[in-house]
């Protein structure tokens, strides 16, 4: 376990360098002149040249890359070109908002998906299983903004139960805040439930059909006891890896959901800074999202290993 952790942690800086190179290369692809893009078409040539020097864009790409990476690692993230505020405040603020939304979605996702997966697995190839499986497949294939829009029409426009915007008013009580976050969180949950439930179902079927579950049943334990004591853990542990995959989807899904519900999160910031060609904000946002994603994958792998004693103790070594 320790060796595994050390290896994975050692790989992080390497991956980060690769990721940062990708981000930087992407921002180098911008057609035309960034300084020109900021100042607009009417600006004089000398003003554009002055801004280029001021932003350091006249220096070679390699120098700028090293400077930027050094700045990123030491926390000097610069100022936003368009919003004129420190990128650090902006990104951390938006990141907090997105994590709140993602956390709510995750808290809703786990019990729903695990329960559905267990029910489907225990009743496998019976009507309950078919309904759950096909519904999960359907919703999992549908983009989150499509489900989001349908939720909006039903719960916000027709029933008027929940607000259409996820923007939380500053003086909102926690319950009101939750109301604002519920629809965007639900669209993420609906996207991810099917996939996670499918994994739980598959491992439940394996566990239910296993020799140890059958033996327990033959010894006279009731179905409920067998499920609780023998199936549950064996069925849910492998699903942690599926949850890891879905957390990645959650992060990616944030972009569209935040745009749809006008939520000031990091996904919306990524999109806006990309459209505005606000390079410092864009590069930092992309890096932060990349790191977050890496940590999620690592976290899920660690949890999986902690929960599964065979992997933890290296019994099932390759």
């Amino acid at each position: 376990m320790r060796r595994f952790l050390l290896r994975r942690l050692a790989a992080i800086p390497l991956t980060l360098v690769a990721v940062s190179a990708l981000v930087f290369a992407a921002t180098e692809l911008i057609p035309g002149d960034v300084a020109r893009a900021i100042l607009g078409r009417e600006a004089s040539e000398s003003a554009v040249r002055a801004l280029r020097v001021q932003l350091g864009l006249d220096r070679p790409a390699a120098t700028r890359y090293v400077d930027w990476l050094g700045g990123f690692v030491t926390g000097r993230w610069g100022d936003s070109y368009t919003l004129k505020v420190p990128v650090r405040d902006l990104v951390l603020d938006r990141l907090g908002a997105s994590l709140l939304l993602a956390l709510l979605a995750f808290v809703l996702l786990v019990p729903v998906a695990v329960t559905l997966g267990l029910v489907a697995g225990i009743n496998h190839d019976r009507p309950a299983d078919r309904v759950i499986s096909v519904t999960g497949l359907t919703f999992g294939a549908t983009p989150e903004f499509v489900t989001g829009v349908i939720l909006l029409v039903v719960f916000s426009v027709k029933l008027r139960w929940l607000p259409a915007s996820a923007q939380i008013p500053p003086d909102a009580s926690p319950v009101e805040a939750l109301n604002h976050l519920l629809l965007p969180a639900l669209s993420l949950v609906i996207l991810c439930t099917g996939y996670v439930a499918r994994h739980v179902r598959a491992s439940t079927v394996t566990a239910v059909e296993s020799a140890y579950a059958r033996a327990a049943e033959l010894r006279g334990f009731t179905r409920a006891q067998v499920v609780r004591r023998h199936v549950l853990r064996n069925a849910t542990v492998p699903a942690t890896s599926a949850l890891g995959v879905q957390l990645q989807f959650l992060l990616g899904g944030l972009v569209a959901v935040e745009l749809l519900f006008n939520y000031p999160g990091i996904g919306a910031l990524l999109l806006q800074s990309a459209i505005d060609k606000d390079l410092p904000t864009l590069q930092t946002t992309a890096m932060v999202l990349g790191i977050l994603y890496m940590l999620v994958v690592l976290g899920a792998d660690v949890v999986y290993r902690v929960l599964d004693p065979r992997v933890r103790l290296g019994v099932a070594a390759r």
Partner: protein
Amino acid sequence: MTTSVIAKGIVPRISRGVGGRSRVALAVGGTLILAWAVIALFWPHLAPYDPVHQDPLHRFAPPGPGHWLGTDQFGRDTLSRMLAGARPVLQVAPLATALGTLAGTVVGLVAGTFGGLVDEVVMRVLDAIVVFPTIIAAVLFVALSGRSVTAVVLVIAASFTTIVARSVRAATLVEREKAYVEAARLRGERSWSLMLREILPNVTTTVLVEATSRFGDAIFAAATLSFLGLGQPPGSPEWGASVSDNRTWLQIAPWTVLAPALAIASLVVATALVADALRSRWEAP
């Protein structure tokens, strides 16, 4: 092995064997996809109005006899726009799927067959690329390189390359150890011919399964990019863009949003049903 257990993500399928259920899914999904394909090809003959024709006297007309699915803020016919919107997504998705599957198969085959340093380098590069969820990478590249169909196709294909390459590499590693490959090697076949003539035919199932799954993902990604404003120029009847443009009017004209949203849903769900049914057929022992 530092590769993540997560990254191997195997999707357990729901339908098993070649039972009646997979046949129903195949029929329903296949019909829907076929219908949208026909619409994408022939919408100019099917649409009751010109999808970009503005009719200021009939703005926000609710669904009714004149306009079956109502009109939008410019008085454009929602049904006609929905039909016309099938074309852009069905241009991008097959292209991106084909490109990504092809590139991924080549990369995976080479990495798996040759192994060693080649494999190590390829896998590390893939690991770095995978750090970006498709949509985030797409926002980065498409927004910056200027929006164009080519950019959308390339970015989706690139993200598929990594996914397909992993699966094909895994399948190649299994095949490489089998007796027929050993026999071919003893016959004196060289690595390239070994890869193309012995291993490739035996990993085609993997490639086909990947391609069908990726096709759904491509529609998903193309629709999302269009929703984010990174698809075709404003005013085009693309589904994702229509949802995004019309959501301001959600309160007074929900049909303008629901029509393209349900169009996307029907196509992705049909694709998912077909992919799942085909996977269970091809992978059935």
